[in-house]
């Protein structure tokens, strides 16, 4: 069997927030986010039951003391139970940024890494004994690469066993599953299973409290009673997990950072900072003769939550001027939550070539664009927009005033006309 290590940073978002503001360690914290912010990791499949709208505020993470608050629980429900808890907004961009750095450090050691969610990775540690020594040495190296955090490491023959082992390991230490996996999982509560929460409740109702209880019965009855997910629960309780390790694909990004001498909201200073960062980014060899499709700007804000903005370039930018133009046009309409202390600029979606799709029927596209502009102006001005079109009357005439006329644009008639023309062309 190929050993897999599971590196789990419990309460990952809280650990980052606590590192950023150490005073948060003294109080109970609920980190709130939206449903779509929730990670789709192994342990989160049972969380968002009962949430209807994706924009509903839910619990993204908590401090370790709030054991009865589950991830994905509606925020109002969580705060009702914990009046004193401090609620802060999830800064998912920053969490991802920090996690990406961790992944990069781990990748320098071992390339086979699967990212299962924020704070949870699986590492294929087979075939590296000659390079790093036995599993214990490998695990130590991995732990050193994530030394800033309270890390739990588990080693097993598959992803589930590695994860289960990490659940029992102590802070900054590792646990390896040896011998029969069924025996190892025997006393594990069914609540640890990564299955939907209603199934957990049903398992309890049937008196199946531990994985040993599930393993004692046959697979058939489990599937007959609970469906396909019952079969999965049975497999997991027996330590069977056939999911392969899916290596993380490296995304080429270019990041630059600067600190403002003093916090600022001055748009000129911010533009200058963006220009300077773009200049540095486009001078990097990774971006030479290449195009970026997206820019992310992340700033710490004085006495406020960090500010993030994402700009997708309509046409990929291969130089700072194009990128700056797009960023400036978006920045000029933004109101900042407070004075910016620093600025992280990340260019992503880097591509070697860029293509522009041309329309086969340019006139149709042009007419459509014109019609849309006309309708937008119509709604904004509340009157027929003063848009005219030059129409030919008798372009062959020797009398100049008989050749052309200005006609008020009427898109509905034009549509009909162009449709007629198209029909005619098809004939």
């Amino acid at each position, binding site marked *: 069997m190929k050993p897999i290590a599971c590196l789990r940073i419990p309460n990952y978002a809280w650990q980052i927030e606590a590192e950023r503001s150490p005073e948060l360690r003294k109080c109970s914290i609920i980190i709130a986010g939206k449903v779509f912010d929730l990670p789709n990791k192994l342990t989160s499949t049972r969380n968002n039951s009962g949430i209807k709208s994706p924009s509903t505020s839910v619990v993204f993470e908590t401090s370790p003391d709030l054991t009865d608050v589950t991830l994905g629980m509606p925020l109002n429900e969580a705060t009702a139970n914990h009046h004193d808890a401090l609620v802060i907004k999830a800064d998912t961009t920053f969490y991802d940024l920090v996690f990406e750095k961790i992944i990069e450090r781990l990748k320098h050691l071992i390339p086979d890494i699967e990212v299962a969610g924020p704070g949870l990775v699986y590492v294929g540690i087979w075939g590296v004994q000659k390079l790093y020594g036995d599993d214990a040495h490998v695990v130590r190296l991995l732990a050193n690469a994530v030394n800033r955090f309270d890390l739990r490491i588990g080693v097993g023959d598959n992803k589930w066993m590695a994860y289960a082992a990490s659940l029992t390991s102590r802070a900054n230490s590792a646990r390896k599953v040896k011998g029969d996996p069924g025996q190892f999982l025997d006393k594990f509560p069914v609540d640890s299973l990564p299955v939907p929460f209603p199934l957990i409740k049903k398992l309890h109702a049937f008196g199946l409290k531990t994985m040993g209880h599930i393993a004692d019965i046959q697979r058939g009855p489990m599937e007959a009673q609970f469906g396909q997910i019952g079969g999965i629960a049975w497999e997991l309780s027996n330590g069977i997990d056939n999911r392969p390790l899916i290596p993380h694909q490296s995304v080429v990004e270019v990041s630059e950072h600067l600190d403002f001498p003093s916090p600022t909201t001055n748009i000129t200073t911010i533009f200058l900072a963006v220009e300077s960062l773009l200049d540095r980014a486009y001078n990097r060899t990774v971006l030479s003769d290449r195009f970026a499709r997206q820019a992310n700007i992340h700033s710490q804000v004085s006495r406020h939550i960090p500010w993030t903005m994402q700009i997708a370039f309509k046409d990929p930018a291969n130089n700072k001027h194009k990128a700056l133009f797009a960023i400036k046009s978006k920045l000029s309409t933004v109101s900042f939550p407070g004075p910016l202390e620093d600025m992280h600029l990340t260019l992503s979606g880097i591509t070697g070539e860029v293509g522009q799709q041309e329309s086969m029927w340019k006139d149709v596209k042009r007419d459509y664009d014109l019609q849309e502009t006309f309708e937008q102006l119509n709604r904004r001005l509340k009157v027929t927009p003063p848009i005219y079109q030059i129409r030919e009357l008798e372009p062959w005439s*020797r009398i100049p005033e008989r*050749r052309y006329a200005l*006609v008020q644009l009427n898109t509905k008639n034009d549509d009909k006309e162009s449709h007629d023309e198209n029909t005619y062309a098809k004939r």
Partner: protein
Amino acid sequence: MKILNTPLAIEVRTNSTGNPTAIHMPPSAQLRSNGKWVNVTKVENLWKVNDEWWRGPDEEISRLYYVLRIDSGQQITLFLDLITNKWYRQSG
């Protein structure tokens, strides 16, 4: 609907041969003129347009077009309506 390039009536001074020598430019920001008389430095071209004579003398069109260069270097096209004997400005 608005007809483009309609003729604008204009005052013109002519010499003994009937060629324009000065034009009274109406005040216009577009033409950078403040409504003064400007001298014609050169007649660069002229042609005659006769049309719709079959409609009778009331609807007949008979014009003599001039392409002129004025003091400021600007090129201007005028015509003399040979039916009414009035001058108009119009691009050709």
